[in-house]
């Protein structure tokens, strides 16, 4: 069955344990950045930060709400990156993780074209810009832990407030619905249930998602199915158009006068 994680934004306190455990499990270097005048440094994912927690201050009347959102790869059910890759560098495993294979031994078929980065609706894949031969990097859902040891992802393990819950996606959806039912504060929406065909990571919140930097009202159709709607016509166009052209050429040829092309053209003499 396909695994998932339910992120309950009401429970997150922005301790950033998830960021630390992600780095230590995945051996990602910590590079000191420059000072930035905000709370959520580094604020956006890059090739060494596969998960970040972003801060959002929301004013509702005289009330100020401070909310924190953990971000990482959403692990789409039908990943745009996987379909966009022309060398099968991404795989959606049956466990639910979307992983990039080329960093594994003998799997280096990534060309570095970065179309996955254009294709991802969540802006997740990052590139090792500073390297001569960069890889694409992103959250792997701790696939190694999941598969070999049956463990939950490192970030979930380290979360002290149970803001993250790992389990079967279907069960998590039921749980999310139950929480939303029981507490009227929640927004009646599970982000990731249907967005772009659904994602393995799901979010619930007491603040509208568009105020937390989520792109809302997006397509419920997956991106691969959009592309396929166009690509499926390729063979018909190839043979159909080819046949039409051949027929036209044959038809018009009979009526055209014969030309001796060799006598028509000459090199330019510019001396």
């Amino acid at each position, binding site marked *: 069955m396909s695994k998932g994680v339910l992120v309950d934004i009401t429970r997150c306190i922005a301790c950033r344990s998830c960021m630390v455990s992600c780095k230590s499990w995945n051996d990602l270097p910590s590079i000191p950045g420059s000072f930035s005048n905000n709370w959520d440094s580094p604020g956006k994912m890059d090739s060494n930060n596969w998960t970040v927690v972003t801060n959002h201050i929301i004013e509702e009347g005289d009330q100020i709400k401070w909310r924190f959102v953990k971000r990482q790869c959403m692990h789409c059910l039908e990943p745009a990156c996987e379909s966009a890759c*022309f060398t099968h560098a991404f795989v959606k495993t049956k466990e639910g993780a979307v992983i990039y294979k080329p960093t594994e031994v003998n799997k280096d*078929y990534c060309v570095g074209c970065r179309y996955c980065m*254009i294709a991802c609706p969540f802006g997740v894949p990052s590139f090792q*810009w500073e390297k001569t031969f960069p890889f694409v990097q992103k959250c792997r859902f701790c696939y190694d832990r999941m598969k070999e040891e049956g463990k939950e992802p490192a970030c979930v393990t380290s979360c002290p407030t149970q803001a993250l819950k790992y389990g079967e996606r279907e069960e998590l959806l039921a749980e999310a619905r139950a929480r939303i039912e029981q507490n009227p504060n929640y927004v009646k929406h599970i982000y990731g249930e249907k967005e772009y065909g659904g994602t393995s990571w799901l979010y619930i919140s007491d603040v509208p998602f568009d105020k937390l930097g989520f*792109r809302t009202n997006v397509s419920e159709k997956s991106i691969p199915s959009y592309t396929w709607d166009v690509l499926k016509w390729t063979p018909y166009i190839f043979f159909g158009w080819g046949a039409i052209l051949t027929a036209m050429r044959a038809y018009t040829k009979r009526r055209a006068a014969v030309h001796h092309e060799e006598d028509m053209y000459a090199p330019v003499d510019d001396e």
Partner: protein
Amino acid sequence: MRIGKNWKFKITPFRILLIIFVLIAVGASLYRFIFGLGSVTNLSDEWPWGLWIGFDLLCGIALAGGGFSTALIVHVLHKDKYLPIARAALLTSLIGYIIALVSLFLDIGRWFNFWRPFFYWGYHSVLFEVFWCISLYTTVQILEFGDIFFEKVKCPPLKRILGALMTPLLILGIVLPSLHQSSLGSLYIVTVDRLYPLWWSMLLPFFFVWSAFFLGPAMVTVEGTLAARAYKREPELHVFESLTKVTLVMMIIYLIVKIADLVYRGVFSMAFNGSFESNMFLIEMIVFVIVPIIMYSINSIRTKLWGVLTASILVVAGVIFNRMNVVFTGMADAMGGHYFPSIWEWLITIGMWSALVLIYCFVVENFPILPKEEQHGHGSSISYGKAFHA
């Protein structure tokens, strides 16, 4: 300058300048291959594609559209009056594709893996189709050009083989570019909800292939006039003028489909909402589509060299403008961050287009590409005479 007995290449100050640009670009490219993309470009996670993909690849391929539209008109429909421009169009198209392939090679991060898509069939990717079609079409064009090459470099057996292959090559040489010109548009279908709705459409592939096709005659006009000026020849005005009929009809259809598509998707009013995107869209539509349509349809403008040239320049600039809008303007809001090409990205781009000009000059000076000059003294004296007596 003569190279051996059969080859020549004239050296002018302008060409020396171009050669310097090429050398700088070669140096910068070597640096990029050794030290990586981050060291020479301003690309980032927000802007994974920049000048090389947006301009050199997308616009380069579109501008090379003259190759396949001319091939269709001349070799499939056999409109023989356009024969004089056929070879020049093929040549520019071929060089354009080689430039596009070079810029693609420069742009990919793991360039030693460039051949992988030939063996790992990611057929569900639009890029897969683009990659295969562009590679195959470049090969087809090289073979088509081989037919011309062997007119000068005598090798009868090869010439005969190529001659026999010419029909299938010509057909492939239209089908393949039709497919990937449209696929270049399909590439941006994945940006649903992100590319500004004035540009995002399921019809993107149609708009891309259609505009690449009607761009062809305009591009032929522009480059034909440039070549005529450079070599002090008579521009093929009658050919340019009569080609505008193709462009005109196709542009009107383009405009109608564009408007219908906007109305169908319910975003027509967005064109007038005063945002930066909407203004850029209006400029694209009015200056670069409607104005050329008007110019092409007025007889007294179309039949003059300046008129047909100005309108054609607008069409060419318009297609570039459209591609830039799709890649940059339309995506800016969703991608965040900012991107402006670094000096090295510019220099490499300039170097590549300089190389295009140099190769073009070398080839037309050494191979039978442009039509033989008639004795213009004779022709012009007749028209002079008429005017004199009238």
